[in-house]
């Protein structure tokens, strides 16, 4: 009786209100703390920390433009700017709040190929140094640029991957054991890409502001992508059971592989685009050939799981686009709006997607008898890593 009445009492308030009470209380407590200026806490301990990070450098004829972000806990005021030990008139002075950004525009007769050292002098006399290794004009982002990047994406993404998928007839004839080895090869390819994506993402994260999370963004992106794909996976499985359609896991897996590779290629595009934007990309046949060879093997990875299925040509093209087109998208983002924090997160997303795909593929490589990895499978994994490593040598952005 007692317990029963207590339940009824509790039931007087709706559940959502019970959930909201602590939230309201913490909001009130924090508001009071702010309004009373943190009673008993006193001033900050020590001198303000000035941490400005140069996020983006744009070189136009006769002009240097820096986008800086305040990466520290205290506001920073930019008072003066010097280029190669020369004070210069500039625009964009003033206070930059925590995590805020500011664009500093300096008219300066920079010379192509030469190095520049810029320091921002803050109101407290602190200096934030920024080096430009070799000055080159930042390409304008216009229609022809978008066209160029689209073409590049098709050359190094869509075409090679689609061609790689033409291994499908070959894959169909190699038999069960052969498919296992090809799946292992795919896992090897993807494993290499996972490590590569992680290292790249980490490097980019470290080069940018740390205030938004830095390296953690790569892990957050990976977790988000992995969990999202796991969720999608279980949702699709659920639907499949309801529809009582079996045996479609191959084409479904192919889709997952294509998505994973697509997200990885988004990162590849980002790297291409940002390198192009900083004027450091050799847009030559060499780059295209390297990337094309590198990415052709990705086509094989997509078709390996669908070896035993009838697949329409349109579907293959669709898979090729999913895997390859993100190169173009990445290149657009990388060149037009490079942001280290965003890019690090996207690399994380690519990483998470690839890991999820590897997890999906893993059972398919194992022996049906005892679940072990046969020597052929292990060799396949190693061959995949080797292929990626070798073709990767052809492209270093």
């Amino acid at each position, binding site marked *: 009786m007692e317990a029963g009445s207590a339940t009824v009492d509790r039931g007087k308030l709706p559940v959502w209100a019970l959930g909201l009470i602590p939230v309201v209380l913490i909001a009130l407590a924090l508001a009071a703390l702010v309004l009373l200026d943190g009673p008993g806490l006193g001033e900050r301990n020590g001198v303000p920390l000035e941490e400005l990070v140069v996020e983006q450098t744009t070189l136009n*004829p*006769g002009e240097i433009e820096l986008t800086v972000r305040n990466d520290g806990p205290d506001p920073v005021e930019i008072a003066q700017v010097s280029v190669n030990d020369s004070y210069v*008139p500039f625009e964009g*002075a003033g206070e930059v709040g925590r995590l805020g950004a500011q664009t500093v525009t300096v008219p300066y007769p920079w010379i192509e190929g030469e190095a520049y050292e810029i320091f921002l002098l803050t109101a407290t*006399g602190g200096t934030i140094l920024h080096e430009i290794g070799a000055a080159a004009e930042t390409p304008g982002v216009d229609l022809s640029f978008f066209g160029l990047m689209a073409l590049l994406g098709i050359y190094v993404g869509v075409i090679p991957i689609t061609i790689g998928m033409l291994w499908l007839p070959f894959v169909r004839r190699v038999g069960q054991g052969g498919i296992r080895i090809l799946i292992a090869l795919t896992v090897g390819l993807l494993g290499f890409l996972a490590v590569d994506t992680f290292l790249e993402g980490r490097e980019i994260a470290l080069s940018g502001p740390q205030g938004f999370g830095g390296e953690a963004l790569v892990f957050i992106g990976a977790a988000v992508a992995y969990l999202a794909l796991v969720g999608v996976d279980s949702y699709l499985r659920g639907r499949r059971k309801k529809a009582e359609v079996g045996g479609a896991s191959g084409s479904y897996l192919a889709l997952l592989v294509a998505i994973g590779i697509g997200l990885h290629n988004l990162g590849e595009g980002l790297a291409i685009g940002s390198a192009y934007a900083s004027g450091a990309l050799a847009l030559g046949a060499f780059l295209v050939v390297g990337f094309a060879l590198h990415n052709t093997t990705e086509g094989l990875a997509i078709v390996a799981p669908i070896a035993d299925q009838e697949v329409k040509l349109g579907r293959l093209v669709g898979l090729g686009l999913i895997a390859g087109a993100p190169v173009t998208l990445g290149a657009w983002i990388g060149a037009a709006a490079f942001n280290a924090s965003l890019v690090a997160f996207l690399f994380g997303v690519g990483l998470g997607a690839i890991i999820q795909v590897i997890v999906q593929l893993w059972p398919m490589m194992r022996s049906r008898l005892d679940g072990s990895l046969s020597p052929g499978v292990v060799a396949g994994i190693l061959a995949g890593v080797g292929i990626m490593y070798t073709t990767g040598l052809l492209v270093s952005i």
Partner: protein
Amino acid sequence: MSNQSNPDTSKRVSRRRLLAGGALATASLPLLHQGVPHKGIHEAIAGAPANAQGGGHHSAGAQGTTTAPTGGGDGGHLLHADFRAGPEVDHAANGFNPTEMLRDFDYGTTRRLPGGQILREWDIVASDKEIEVAPGVKYAAWTYNGRVPGPTLRCTEGERLRIRFTNASDHPHTMHFHGLHSAVMDGMPGVGEQQGGGQILPGESFDYEFDADPFGMHLYHCHTSPLPIHIAKGLYGAFIVDPKAGRPPADEMVMVMNAFDTNFDKGNEVYAVNTVGFHYQRNPIRVTRDELVRIFLVNMVEYDPLNSFHVHANFFNYFQTGTSLQPVEFTDIVIQGQAQRGILEMRFPSTGLFMFHAHVTEFAELGWTGFFEVVD
């Protein structure tokens, strides 16, 4: 503060471009340091009072420079180094203005001693004070009488000098004069402590007393260790001993070449004459054509071994240390190590704007640049 350099994407790039992209018309880029400074000067002082006229006097070329550069819109050209457009430093808050400081000679107070000798006295107080050395840039300085450089103490050879020094700073300091005096009066920590000299601790006072000798252009500075800090922080000033017979009448000014290590990395960020970078570029020193100009020049820059003074379109007689009435050289440039000093005498034969600057051009473009504006 964070001093790290964060490489942007271009730094990560391991390969330089193989295909030259859109060719850069380097020819269209203007030279950094044009030979026609007056165009920029008028822009620079556009918001400042009075001095903007006189543009018709100088040599050609100004019009060509404004069209040469490309890009960047209105601000896309650079005639010479300068701070950003905008407000000057707050001279009132600093408590001194380099334009006034230039011709500000502190003669102290005098009375005749029983023996007939003149006693000249000053009160000097050392204190800690934040000053603005470039627009918007504050520096925690140590000062004599609230200014950097300290007051220009001026006297005549043979006089008895008494400098009543009080240390109101949080740190021990001294006053060490370049000149002839006894060991107790040397302002050297550890020397003459028994007699009250040596290190002068916070809250303490000491009277430095000696005869003005020899005549010349001298200086004083704090001699407390760590010496580089005590000098770099601003504890120095000019000390002029005139010869008994005096010098020919002239438009006299004192220039203390100094610099500030605002980020404490043992290298200077702002260079100047009389503390505020580019002050005389933005506020040219007005002088009269053909009138004798006498400059008392001393180098007090810390962390850099040499400094120099160069004036455009003119030559001067240089009196090394000012201890002889015969010039040692007729030149347009003089190089000084720290505490080296001299007297420059020149006349400007034509009107117009004439730059003067350190011919250590790095210093020039970090603030040590000014203009004479010669008028009739």
